[in-house]
Every structure is written in C-alpha cells, then in structure tokens.
C-alpha cells in the first residue's frame, strides 16, 4: 500500500439491509447477513491502488448490520468550488476531467463502476490532484442489492440509471434487483459535474427529486443537451464562452444514448485532451513480492543520493503505508464508532425505545417506529491522528529506518530500545497491543520482507521473537520458503472444471471456521473453493480428505486478496508437516504418526499415559483431527495464528509436542475421568490457554531427543543445496530426516513392532551427542541447550564390566523389578531414582528386554524413558565403549 503522505484517514458508515425473516439458503443453512457479504466483497478494494483513487483501508461490522469503512481521505473536494460559487477555469476543468477519467478507467479495468460520482466525492489532495472517494460502494454492495438506500445522487444519475428503476426493499412488486450499471453511467455523471464547474452553480438544485429525474429523462428529446441545461439554469452566456474543446467534452459526456456516449477509456484518448494528456505518465503498478519480474527493474536512483533526503520534514509516520498507520491508530486506542458518534454521524436510540409491539410466529415484527438513526448519512469523518502521534512522539527517527546489514543488533539503537527490550519479555498478547513495539516490529519486518529472500535468515531470527499480526501472511510465506512467480502458477491451474471432489468441498466450506466474517462471506467461500480445487488438481497423487478445508483456512484468511499466495503456502506447508497424510490410503502414515504420539505421551507424562491406556482412550479416538489439520480444526483462528507462529519455526516433530502440551493442560480432568467422559470432553475441546500451550510444547520439544520422533513415512530428505539462500540448519528447525543418514541412525521399524513398544527409541547418534561422547571431540551445541541424560545399561554385570559407555549405570534387568512390577530397592535403582527427571536411555543386547524394562519404568511413572535403537551392538563399532579400571 501507498504511504500516507499528506492524506488523512476517513471513515463513513452505512447499514446493510436486514434479511427477511426465517428464510433459508438453498443448502438449508441460514442465509449470510448482508453486512458479511459486503465485508467479503470489500476486501478486493484494498488492492485497488491508484494515484487518482482514495485507498480503501478497512471495513468493520458494528451492531445491527452497521458497516464502517475506512479509507484515505482529504478535506477539500469539488464541492468547495460550488460553495464558493466560482467557475473553474477551462484548464482546471480539463485537468479535473482527465484525472477523474484516469481513476474511472483504472476502476473499469478491475470491473468496477463508481455510480456515486458527485462533487463531494471528488476530493482534492494538497497538490490539487483529484482523488475519487466512495468509488467502491457500488461494488461492495453488489450493485446496491445489499443495502436499502440507492447508490448515487439524484442530480448526477444518468438517464439509463433512472430508467432502470430504483429497487426498494418495501416494494414487493419488484422482485428482481435493477440491472447493474455500466462504465458509461459515470461519464454522464462526470458531464454533470463538469457542467457545474463551468457554470459555477449546482444543477437542478431547487426542484424536488421526482421533478429532477423527470427532467433528466426528458433530455432525451433535446438536440443539444448542454444548451438546454445552460438555458434552464440561466448561464447560457458563460457556457457559450467556453473554449471549443471544453464544450466538446461536455457534449460527449452528456450524450443521452449510452451507445453513443464514450467509455472513460475512449474519452481519455479523445483529442479534447491533447493539451492535457502529455502531462501525465501512465500509472505503473508496483511489483509485488512474488513475481517473475525484477522488483528493482524500475528503480532509478537520483544522481545525487542526498536528493532523496531533501524533503525531510521529520514526519516519518506519514511515510508509512496507510494500512500500517491505521493499524497503529487502532492500537493507540482508536475507536471508529466513537469517532463517528462524536461527530453525530452515529446516533443511536436507547434500545428499549425501539422495541416492537408484536411479533408473529415467523418472526416478523410490528409496531416498531421507523428509526431515524438507521438513515444513511454518508458524511466522511476524518480520523484524528493526534493520539497516535502522541503515543509515538518518543520514537526516534532512526527507528523508522533500521539498518539490516549488521545482523548482530536486532533492534534499532534508539533511546527507547531499552524499553523495547523489556517489552520483548512481556506476554505476546500485550506485545501485540503495544503501539510503539508494533511500529518497530512492523517496520523491521517490512524491510526484511523487502529484502526477502536475501534476508531469509534474518526473518527466521526475528520470527522467533514474535510476528506482528499485520505482516503475518507474508512472514509465514517467507518462513515456508515461498519463492518464484506463484501468480502464474496459480493462474495456470484449472480451478473451474468440475472434479469429483467438488461435492465434498461444497459441503465442507460452509462448515469451516464460519464464525469468522471473512471466511463466512460468499467471497470467502468462492476463494476457499478455488484454492482447495487448485491444490487437489495440482496434487494428483494426493486426495482431498476432510480437514484440508480447515488447513486452508489460516492461509486464506491471511492472504485473502492473494489466493495464489494462500495456495503456495498451503502447498509448501503440507509436505513439511503432513507428508503423505493426504494419500488415498493414508492409514500406515497416520497409524505410525499416532503410535509415535502415544510414545511421546509416555515419554513426557507416564502417569497420564498409563491412565489413558488403562481406560483405552487411545490417540486414534481424538488425535486424528488434531494432526490431520495441524490443530486448525479444534482451535479458532486467533489461537491458530499464535500456535503456528511457533509451529512454522519448528520441525515436523513439533506437532507431537503440541499434542502432549494440550493433553497436559487437560491433565487433571483426564486423570479424574473414565472413557466416556474423556470422549465427551474431546468431542468439543474445552478452552485451551494457547500461550501456555506454546510455551509448554517448546519445553517438551527441548526435552525430546531428536530421533525419538523418527518416522519411516516422514518426508524423505530433500536434495541438498536446493536453495541458494539456504538458512543455516539449526537443531530445532531441521528435521531429523534431513540429517545425513549414517550407520548410527535409526532403522525403520514395522508398525506392529513400533506399536508394541511403549517408549520411543533413540538413535546411537543422539545418545553420543547427548552424552557428549563425541567421536571427533567437537560438540555441536553448548551444554545448556541439551536435555540432561542418564544411560542405563541393563545387561548382566559381567557384560557391563566387559565394556560400556562411560557414565552409564548398570541395573541388570533380572534384578531390577520385583514380581509385582515395583522397582527393587538397591543402590543402582537408588541412583536411578536420583536421576528421575533426566532422559533415561535403556541400553541392552536385545531390543525386547530393553523395551520391557522401559515399559516397567513407565508403569512406575518414570518420565522420559527411551531405548537405544539397535542396543549396545550399535555402539560397538564406534569404539566408544570403555572398560572400567578394575576395582581393587
């Protein structure tokens, strides 16, 4: 989005029309409220960026179908001319006409018509250039069908618009909505507007509406409409004195028959503008982050670099994008309804005064007086940026332009950086509402993303702190490594031809995160359908499983105006975290996944695991939707965002830890309840504290040896060096599968064998790494970051003395447990008790006995028990076994 510059933020409000009572949609579901339809259709307007159009910023829904639209705004408009009663010079008229047409033509290219053109909707910026306001109203209201009021102003309506009729909601005789208007209707309105400018007075002001409209309709019989209008308003002389090209322009605009009237595009190329058009360069759309063309292709640096800094007026905030400024305005306590109420645009009566008297069985109410506060007042109110300015007055100028080259200093060095570093320690919820903190973060990420993919590592680093909500969509894309011309790829995917999956998609979409306004809007549904179909079509080896819709939801929500990016993110996410989950026969993948999950439960929380196994509450009963949708099916979007902010930073085994963290949060209730209650509890998952869940899953993740979550059906390692800007693989982010496979790695295990084992196996590599028995003597990680470990050798005393890994303790299996499964009291088990809480690695000859030993330990609630894959034999070739010096 463009920088704010000298513009202001404006807000106006209107009501969507209420739905009829008790009407169902064709699918049997309740109808979508009109305000939500409008909200969905509005979104695309945010992407319409043109120097002649006021940038739309946001829309929000209030009570009772109220909508408030926020857009770029300027205080002065063409109606100022009219108020002064002056005529505009012919040059000015031509300039205005040309600029308005530029805006109109751009809109038409995007399939939009203004329809509400009038003097007070043609704003003037500080340089006197035209900015069209409210140009999206006709589009967002579905050509006026979703609102009760007519779009446009009586004097400016084109004759064909009048003839096509006004659709009135109380009119039962008009069942069909009026036909949508074409681009040429705006040309007529422009004609009226220009005529007013030339004549220096408003047209048809003194007669009532129906006479006005009749008059416009009768113009059809006139030969020279301009002259007739001039005569009617007593300004024939003024009009006659106009230069020929202005008159020509007026005549062309005020052509009665639409077929003879030019379109805005045609008029722009008309010779009347010969003297004007040369002053304007055609608008070029800025290149987006993901495109095939070079982003710097049109960058021209001035000869003298210092020219760039010339207009340095210290108002750095106005150099930020409009949507950023608005976002910060909201954070700084901005309240749209309050602003509008203060200006008396919103006037509400106490609800008790507007109650109906009588309501029929079908819900139709009677005796409700007409409430004047529901009438349309489309005055735009300027939102004051004072409060925001005050909040940010301490932010130094340097903070707006952080230097990225030095990767060491993460935050800009300003006098407020101390405050900011303390802010980092605050809870995420608070940070997300901190104006100053968000400003700094947004600026930083904005710059990092501009340097993407070059600054990919930096993005990773900063994302570990937090991700500002405003830029989350792009940051996620960066974390998922999206690159290339995604738009072209998306467009070349066939999203229209019917496929067998359509029916299921159609059923699922109206049930997916429908509490959200965006996703429940018809536009949201259309986009949902397209992205899902694109994914299904472009992944012929995979199929649509229910749950894919939920998985798509966060990406679509964040990239609502960029389906291609949503699609690209989803396509990158699935292989990373849900490899082969969407196979037609995915049972082996899922079964393995769930088995590893139950091993992780036993590893981290043996008591819970014992209880759940006892009552037979196995992960198959509840965890499939968790993992198949990566928790998007069970959490609302705002929680998914926080969860995924961390998930995307972790590797593919992180979801296990999230799963365990959720279970642990419900631990008390699970432990207290039997099978039936647990099923009931999970059928509608209770509220989960997501910040705690994230914190705990990170902790669990740190305690899990990497190879414990090894799955043979996980994504096979990627070809090395697949991306030039590859980030340095770290312990947490890289997958176990991505590591080079050696003799010491884990071996694949048949599912039935895996299921038989309660505790996870870890690889010899991990053991060596964690016990710091390194081969070459170099430790990759510092000691602090590692889980503490104790190796337990369960072979016989003789075997142990023949060679064992240093630091391990010997508890021969045969002596460890009493017949009733309790741990026998002896010095060795005493040591084990002392090490309770550490990761316990069971080492033996045979895997079977190790697994049994581990099972026993879990039974007596020893946490973090795992088994060495391959047993002691794996370690023999390494030469790491030591023989203790004989004790004398």
């Amino acid at each position: 989005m463009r920088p704010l510059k000298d513009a202001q933020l404006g807000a106006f409000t209107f009501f969507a029309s209420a739905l009829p009572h008790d009407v169902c949609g064709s699918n049997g579901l309740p109808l979508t409220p009109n305000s939500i339809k409008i909200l969905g259709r509005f979104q695309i307007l945010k992407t319409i960026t043109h120097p002649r159009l006021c940038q739309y910023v946001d829309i929000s829904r209030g009570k009772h179908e109220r909508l408030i639209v926020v857009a770029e705004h300027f205080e002065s408009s063409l109606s100022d001319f009219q108020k002064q009663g002056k005529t505009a010079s012919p040059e000015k008229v031509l300039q205005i006409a040309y600029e308005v047409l530029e805006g109109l033509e751009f809109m038409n290219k995007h399939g939009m018509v203004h329809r509400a053109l009038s003097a007070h909707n043609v704003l003037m910026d500080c340089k006197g250039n035209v900015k069209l306001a409210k140009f999206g109203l006709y589009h967002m209201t579905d050509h006026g069908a979703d609102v009760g009021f007519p779009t446009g102003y009586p004097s400016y309506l084109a004759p064909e618009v009048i003839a096509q009729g006004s659709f009135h909601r109380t009119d039962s005789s008009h069942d069909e909505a009026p036909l949508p208007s074409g681009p040429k209707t705006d040309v007529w309105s422009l004609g009226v507007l220009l005529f007013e400018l030339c004549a220096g007075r408003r047209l048809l002001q003194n007669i009532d509406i129906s006479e006005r409209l009749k008059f416009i309709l009768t113009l059809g019989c006139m030969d020279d409409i301009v002259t007739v209008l001039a005569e009617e308003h007593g300004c024939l002389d003024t009009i006659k004195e106009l230069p020929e090209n202005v008159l020509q322009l007026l005549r062309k605009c005020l052509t009665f028959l639409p077929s003879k009237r030019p379109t805005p595009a045609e008029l722009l190329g008309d010779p009347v503008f010969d003297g004007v058009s040369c002053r304007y360069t055609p608008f070029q759309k800025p290149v987006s982050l993901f495109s095939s063309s070079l982003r710097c292709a049109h960058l021209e640096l001035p000869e003298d670099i210092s020219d760039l800094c010339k207009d340095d007026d210290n108002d750095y905030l106005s150099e930020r994008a409009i949507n950023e400024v608005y976002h910060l305005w909201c954070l700084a306590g901005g309240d749209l309804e309050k602003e509008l109420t203060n200006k008396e645009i919103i006037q509400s009566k106490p609800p008790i005064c507007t109650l109906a008297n009588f309501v029929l069985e079908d819900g139709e109410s009677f005796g409700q007086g007409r409430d004047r506060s529901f009438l349309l007042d489309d005055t735009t109110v300027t939102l004051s940026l004072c409060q925001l300015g005050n909040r940010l007055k301490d932010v130094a100028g340097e903070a707006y332009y952080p230097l990225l080259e030095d990767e060491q200093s993460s935050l800009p060095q300003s006098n407020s950086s101390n405050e900011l570093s303390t802010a980092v320690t605050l809870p995420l919820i608070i940070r997300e509402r901190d104006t100053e903190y968000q400003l700094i973060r947004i600026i930083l990420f904005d710059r990092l993303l501009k340097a993407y993919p070059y600054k990919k590592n930096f993005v990773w680093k900063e994302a570990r702190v937090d991700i500002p909500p405003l830029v989350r969509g792009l940051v996620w894309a960066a974390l998922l490594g999206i690159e290339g011309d995604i738009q072209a790829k998306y467009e070349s995917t066939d999203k229209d031809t019917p496929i067998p999956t359509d029916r299921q998609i159609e059923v699922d979409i109206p049930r997916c995160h429908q509490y959200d306004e965006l996703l429940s809007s018809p536009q949201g549904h259309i986009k949902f359908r397209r992205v899902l179909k694109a994914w299904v079509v472009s992944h012929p080896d995979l199929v649509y499983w229910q749950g894919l819709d939920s998985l798509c939801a966060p990406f679509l929500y964040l990239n609502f105006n960029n389906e291609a990016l949503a699609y690209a993110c989803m396509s990158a996410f699935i292989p990373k975290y849900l490899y082969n989950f969407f196979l037609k026969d995915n049972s082996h993948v899922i079964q393995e996944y769930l088995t590893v999950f139950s091993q992780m439960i036993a590893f981290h929380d043996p008591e819970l695991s014992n209880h759940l196994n006892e009552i037979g509450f196995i992960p198959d009963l509840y965890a499939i939707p968790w993992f198949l949708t990566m928790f998007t099916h069970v959490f609302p979007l705002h929680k998914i965002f926080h969860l995924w902010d961390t998930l995307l930073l972790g590797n593919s085994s992180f979801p296990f830890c999230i799963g365990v963290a959720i279970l642990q949060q419900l631990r008390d209730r699970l432990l207290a309840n039997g099978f039936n209650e647990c099923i009931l509890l999970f059928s509608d998952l209770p509220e989960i504290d997501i910040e705690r869940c994230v914190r705990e899953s990170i902790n669990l993740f740190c305690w899990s040896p990497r190879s414990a979550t090894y799955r043979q059906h996980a994504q096979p390692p990627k070809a090395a060096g697949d991306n030039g800007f590859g980030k340095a693989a770290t312990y947490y982010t890289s997958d176990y599968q991505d590591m080079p496979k050696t003799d010491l790695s884990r071996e694949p295990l048949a599912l039935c064998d895996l299921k038989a084992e309660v505790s996870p196996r870890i690889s010899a590599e991990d053991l060596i790494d964690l016990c710091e028995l390194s081969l070459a003597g170099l430790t990759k990680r510092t000691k602090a970051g590692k889980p503490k470990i104790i190796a337990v050798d369960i072979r016989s005393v003789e075997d142990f003395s023949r060679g064992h890994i240093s630091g391990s303790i010997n508890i021969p299996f045969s002596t460890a447990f009493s017949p009733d499964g309790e741990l026998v009291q002896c010095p060795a088990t005493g040591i084990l008790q002392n090490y309770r809480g550490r990761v316990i690695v069971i080492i033996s000859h045979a895997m079977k006995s190790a697994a049994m030993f581990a099972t026993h330990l879990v039974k007596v609630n020893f946490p973090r028990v795992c088994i060495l894959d391959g047993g002691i034999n794996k370690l023999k070739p390494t030469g790491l076994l030591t023989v203790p010096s004989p004790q004398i």
Partner: protein
Amino acid sequence: MASTQDSNSAATMKKSKGKVNSTAEKEFVFEFRAGKHNCVLKVPLQFPVQENISDLHGRLMLLHKIPCYIENDLKTYLSNFIERETILDYDREAELSLQRLTTGDGDVNQLTNAWTRSYVETTLEHARPEEPCWDEDFADVYHELIHSPASDTLLNLEHNYFVSISELISERDMEIKKLQERQATEMDKVMHELGNTLSDQDVNAVASQHFDTQQVLENKWASELKQVTGIQKHEYQEWVISLHQDLQKSNSSQITEEIKVQPSQLLELEDSGARMFEEQPQLEESFTIHLGAQLKTMHNLRLVRADVLDFCKHRRHGSGGAKLRRLQTALSLYSSSLCGLVLLVDNRVNSYSGIKREFATVAKECTDFHFPFLEAQLDEVQQVLLYARAQRSSKQKEQPEIPRNGGDDKNKNVERNPSNILPGEFYISRHSNLSEVHVVFHLCVDDNVRSGNITARDPAIMGLRNILKVCCTHDITTVTVPLLLVHDMSEEMTIPWCLKRAELVFKCVKGFMMEMASWDGGISRTVQFLVPKKQENDPHILLIVPVSGRPHCTEEGGRSNSNSPHNPNKRSAYTAGLLECGSIESISEEMFYQLSNMLPQIFRVSSTLTLTSKH
C-alpha cells in the same frame, strides 16, 4: 490440427442465479499461426462473464495446449473481446429501458416516485426532518441523571411514590375485604332465610347486588389509583426535567449537596410498605458455558426455582439488596444491557385473568414513570395486532400459493377472531417499575404445552427463538425463560414429563444461542431458566393441587437419596419444606437437582475452575 473447437469450457460456467435476468452466449474467436498451420480457437462464453479472465485464459492455454509464444496475444484479445461485448450488453440493456419509457410501456411518474421514495425513506439528506420526540428527550435526561450523584435522590423519590401507592392499595384491600365480610354475613343471613321468607330469586338478586357493589368499589379504587399514578408520573417527570435544567444551569456543587441531603429524610418512610413480600428462599444454581465449535462465546446460565412474578415484585426496601437491585434496573433502563422476562399467556391481549391479571396487579403496585400504563400498552398492541392481521391477509391474497405449515386451520382461527393471538406469537411490554425486568415478552401458548409430546417445531419453541432474536436486535442481555413452559405445576406433570420438557427446552435454547452468535457476533448473555414455585402465602394462588398429585416426588426423592451429591443440610431443608408446604405446587428440591444435573450435560459446562499448584 487445423482448428480447435472448444465446446466444453462453456459448460463449466455456472449460470448466475436470477441476479441478471438475461444471459447470452457469445463466441470468442481467435486465430493464430502455429508453424505452417492456421489455427482457430473458438470459445463460447456466457455473458456477463462471471469468472476471472486470467483463470479463463490459463485454462484455455492448458486445455488446448496453445503454444506459449501466443500466450500474451491471446490474453489481450480475450480481455478486449470480453470488455467490448460487456459494454455492448450494458448499452443494449440501458437503451432498452430508456425505450420502454419513450414508448410508454413504463410509467415515468411511477418510476420517479419510486426513486423519490427510496431517497426520502433511506437517506438523511432527503428525509423529512424529525419531529422532536418527548420520550427520547426524557430518556436522555433520565439516563444522564441516574448516572450522576442525583441517582440516589431519584430512587428515593421513586420509592416515596411507591410507598404512597402501596398505602393506597392496602387501604383499598382493606375496604374490599370489609365489604366482602359484610356481604358474607349478609349472605349468610339470606341463606338462612332461604326457603322460609326468601326465594332463590331473592338470593340471586342479593348476590348480584353484592357483585355490583363490589364492582363499583373496585372501579372507584381503580380510577383513584389511576389518577394518583397519573399525577405522580406527571410530577415526577416535571421534577426530573427541572432538576436536569438546574444542574445544567449551575454546575455548582451546591445543588449536588442539596440533593444528597434529601434522601436521609426519606429513609424513615422505608419500612412503611405494608404489602411487600417476604424474601422467599430461592433455589438457584449458576453455570458458565462456552458455546461454539472453534470460537467459543461465554454465556451465563442460571437455573432458578422461583415464581415468575418474583422478578417483578419489589421487595422490602433495604432488605436483601433490594435497593441495589432497584438501582441496577434503573441504571440499565436506557442502556444496551436490558433484562427481559418471558411470561406465558393465553390468546387474548388483556389482563383479566390468570397470570395476566396477577402480572397487571404487580405492575400497578408502583407507578411507571417512563412508559405508558400497562392497559395503554396493551391497547396499542391490540391496534398493532389488527394492523398486522390486515397486512398479512392482504399479502396472502396476493400470493395465495405460498404454503405455510398448518396455515389453513390457523387462518380459520384468525378469521374467527382477528384480535386473538396465536400460539408462538408474542407481544412486548416495557416497564421501568418492575424490580429486575425492563421488558416482558407475553408469549402465547395453548393447552398443548401441558401435554407431554411437544416437539422442537412447536409454536411455543419457535416463539422462544423469536424472543431470543429480539433480544439480539434490542440488546436484551439477560432473559428469563420458564423452563417447563408452564408457570404452575399440575397433576399430569410427572417427573418424566418434567425431565422430557426440560431437556427439550434446554436443547432448543442451546441451539438458538448458538444461532444467536451469527446474529450478533457472539455477545455474552445470561439466560435464566425458571422452574415454578408457588408459595402458600401467595395471595394470588388460584389453583390448589391436592396432595395426592405429588407422591411421585417423595418416592423419587427417597430413591435417589443415597447417591445424592448434595450436602445433608439441603436434604433436611427439603424434607422440612415438604412437611411445611403440603399444598404448595412447585418443583421439589430433588427435581430441581435433577434438572441442575441435566443442564451441564446438555450445555457441556466447562468444569469448575481447578486451582493447582505449579508442577
């Protein structure tokens, strides 16, 4: 490969639903050279084009394996073609409608009038200026005052008026009682003489004369009460307005002081209310629930055993936080968190009998300083009702083919007496003088609700749904609903009947509450479920149920005594209560706990907060 004919691609384009009445198919023709071949691509397109041109283009490229070197040409041609044809369509439609006017097919006057009307009715710029509304001005003034230090004074003044009305009412009751006693003795005498000196006719004459006297007396009191309340209302409103003006004129603290002094003088009067009701021990349990699949909204539910009018009656001033409750009700009167109550009524809009009469009595105990008297409100409802019926019948005549479920017999019913309301319909009255309620929904139910087999489609249930809808649109955040859809128990309402009914209402209300989230975007609400409680000492008790009607309660209580989760204190209270109130027809305590166990199961109440130490 000489030509590529595309016939399938058009089939995928969906016909837009009724929005644009004319769709036309046009053929897009594109010629290009591939090596030595001249190729022609023909695509039938449905106008107006709904889909994205880039997608269409991408699909054509893919489907027909069009060489990539003409990709850009195709795109330009395609978009130009669509743009051109769309403009032509617009022009044609536009000129058609213009022509219709010139040929006289359309009426210009009708057209322009429709435009005028839609401007006048929907836009502020063209709307007729609003006449100042006294009610709303008063509402603003009151709302401001009640949120100022003057609130105490206002409440005390209101209470003062209340006391004088109460005195009047007790005087009336005394007089009526005396008359009744006198008449009874007289009647006794007459009866004694019956057969001797007097005949049946004479007895009847005496009886009718008694009745007349009683009527006259009652009317006299009624008119007196009306007059007094009228005067009170007038005085009060004037006082409020003048106080507000004073406050505005001189913003000094002096007046505030004056106001503050006043109440102490009034305090003495507080205990004089003779006809106020004793605080009854209520049984109640509260729950917090979270509704919604992913995004959850918190609501509060309360199960209360109380009489429906307990929410309306004023209790003794100063006892049990009655004054606070009064203040709370006054503070929120013009706010956006109102309290509503569902009252089940029969099909006539009046206050002559049953619960309607009782309610009217309660509503008259205190002057309503803000809204018209109940009778006036009901009169208005009558008017609106007749208007609504007229509207409906004229609409139905227009579209007779629309089938309504069971509409036929209903229509007959309406035709019989259009001023009666039907089950499921309700009228609304507004009150400022009830203790905990601002809005009363008078929901019409018939005898059907007493039977055991009503379903979720029953008019009464649909009425509940509409009530909740009104709650959404008018910011009524607390609503009280009779759980069993009856106000008093009778013999046929056995324990299974109660459980079945409670389950139905719980489930339906849960469904409606989830639906509400989509109406209002998930606002936290309080729903109170009311189960009947009639007290022995309630003067309004009309129906006394024989003791034989309730043995099941005792049985039930005895049986599940052993596994009852409740503390022994409550248990003994129950037994004592049973002994004490042989003729009370209410839900037993045991029943109440069964219902309160059912509620969390249906609403999936999140369990009580468990506080644990960090582990």
